[in-house]
């Protein structure tokens, strides 16, 4: 995973709450068995609407998405995170993220920056007054900056550390292999197994 310290890029204001993962990428796009190319499904229904924010020239190269509360609700599809990243997004800012989406973001390397609701309102106003303006998401100091606005964002310590270091989660866990084996040795015998099949 690439290290993430700070990122500055064009901010896109998505004035919607409850952006569920079926909107981020509909199920029909989940059939691919590879890890790349999901940008074509990103917000595919909304992109049919000319007035949709990502269809406007100013936001073509947007890398920071600013959305309303409850972003990423619904399905566990990590494809939603991949679609945002494959499109070019490095960070999403929202007052509230669904748990699974936030977890998936941390694993895949997308920064899910949680801010107060009024910060999102201010960012929307800032971006709409000056389409194509940039936002900085600084993971080191956990702040977002846009023009004169500077506001803290929340991300848990462990995810922040892993993103800053660009660490692979599986490798970290496998370094505790002895603990896993010790746990397995004390698991009760009545716990079910799928093999052999009965």
């Amino acid at each position, binding site marked *: 995973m690439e290290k993430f310290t700070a990122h500055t890029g064009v901010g896109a204001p998505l004035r919607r709450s409850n952006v*569920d993962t079926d909107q981020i990428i509909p199920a029909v796009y989940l*059939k691919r068995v590879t890890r790349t190319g999901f940008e074509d499904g990103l917000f595919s229904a909304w992109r049919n609407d000319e007035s949709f924010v990502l269809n406007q020239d100013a936001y073509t190269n947007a890398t920071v998405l600013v959305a309303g509360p409850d972003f990423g609700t*619904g*399905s566990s*599809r990590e494809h939603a995170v991949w679609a945002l990243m494959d499109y070019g997004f490095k960070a999403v800012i929202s007052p509230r993220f669904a748990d699974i989406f936030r977890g998936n973001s941390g694993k895949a390397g997308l920064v899910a920056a949680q801010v107060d609701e009024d910060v999102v309102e201010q960012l929307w106003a800032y971006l709409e007054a000056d389409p194509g303006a940039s936002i900085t998401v600084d993971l080191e100091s956990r702040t977002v900056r846009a023009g004169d606005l500077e506001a803290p964002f929340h991300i848990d310590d462990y995810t922040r550390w892993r993103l800053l270091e660009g660490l692979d989660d*599986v490798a970290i866990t496998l370094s505790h292999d002895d603990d896993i084996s010790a746990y397995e040795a004390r698991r009760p015998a009545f716990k*079910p197994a*799928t093999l052999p099949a009965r």
Partner: protein
Amino acid sequence: MGKTLAEKIWDDHVVRSADGEPDLLYIDLHLIHEVTSPQAFDGLRLSGRPVRRPDLTLATEDHNIPTTDLDKPIADLVSRTQVETLRRNAEEFGVRLHPMGDIDQGIVHVVGPQLGLTQPGMTIVCGDSHTSTHGAFGSIAFGIGTSEVEHVLATQSLSQAKPKMMAVEVVGDLPEGSTAKDLILALITQETTGGGQGYIVEYRGDAIRKLSMEARMTICNMSIEWGAKAGLIAPDDTTFDYLQGRPHAPQGEAWDEAVAYWRSLGTDDDAVFDKVVTIDASTITPFVTWGTNPGQGVALSGDVPDPASFEDPNERVAAERALEYMGLTAGTPMRDIAVDTVFIGSCTNGRIEDLRVAASLFEGHKVAEGTRVLVVPGSVRVRLQAEQEGLDVVFKDAGAEWRGAGCSMCLGMNPDQLTPGERSASTSNRNFEGRQGKGGRTHLVSPEVAVATGVLGHLASPADLQQLSKAGA
């Protein structure tokens, strides 16, 4: 201080705990399907890692599976490739798979409980948000993304920050004619789609204790729809009776040992929840959604709400958008909404009990002209059981379509989809824009409301059906 049910299960699965780090949690059962696993197996191959515990892993094919022409290869080549990829991966990594055509194939959340692999006190994960279903047995069960699927395949564990604990106290009894689905839909509307976020939720109270396992699964299934990490119900005799004798349930002395452990798991009297919410079951009537998220619901006896009635500006805007997408006008009685398609099935309501109640209500009625009804069993075994009981004949006589097992119209990944503008009453779990097919309009309902709607052609309750019978007689 005592512990909650979820805290006991959590603490029993901690492999490693360290300051400033999430707990490393052991996973008892990892369920997989074709959609969220291919990139995870690719990751294993790239890093040369094996599946650590194939004997705690089970795969089934469900999301892409057509429910007609079961003897033919999947016509959609991309779907077929995804299913074939799962078959190759299962073969290569030694994972047990129930493919199309196998007697144990079905929706992953129907198959686990049916085989007796879902048991109390376990940790269960799957790359699917409706994994919360398995919480009905008193286990911690939750959906994960593909990176986490790879992590569990490689390590049989998951690093997870301990969520907060919430109790949902269900007071009073569900009135005759009201169901578990009505209760959970009403709760989601009460608490909103983000209300459970950050919590493991325990559903408690007499009304819950009186529910069958299948109804408990319906409740826990939709925990994710109000944002909860997981939802669970304390195991009791209902749970044990359901489990005993199933293929993978413990036997003999192991059964007794297991039951003794399971009985010890209930929330202690002096345990403290971080949050308690209450819902009065005695006030619940048939409940349906009018909007494009599961928190936008109303009693069937009510009207399409006026967006102006929402105080929160975000909710107001969301309601305006929802009415536009759904093609609805504020103030329209819900019962006046005509429906094109009725879908009975999914991991929410595709089990044998759901089909029994649906068949009993169809008896003596016909599907309304201009309406189609799809009945899709959650698994091959549910299908066979239903056919043994003659339920398929009732459905077909009424004019409904009797299909093969799979996720079907719950999500637009297989041929069962709505066309743009088509309106459904669906026993599934999500009414998101385009969920059942691009431009499709979904009303979430119970199996009971689904049948009445199919017969009358507009959103309706079983009580409306009875009036029809009386009028006819």
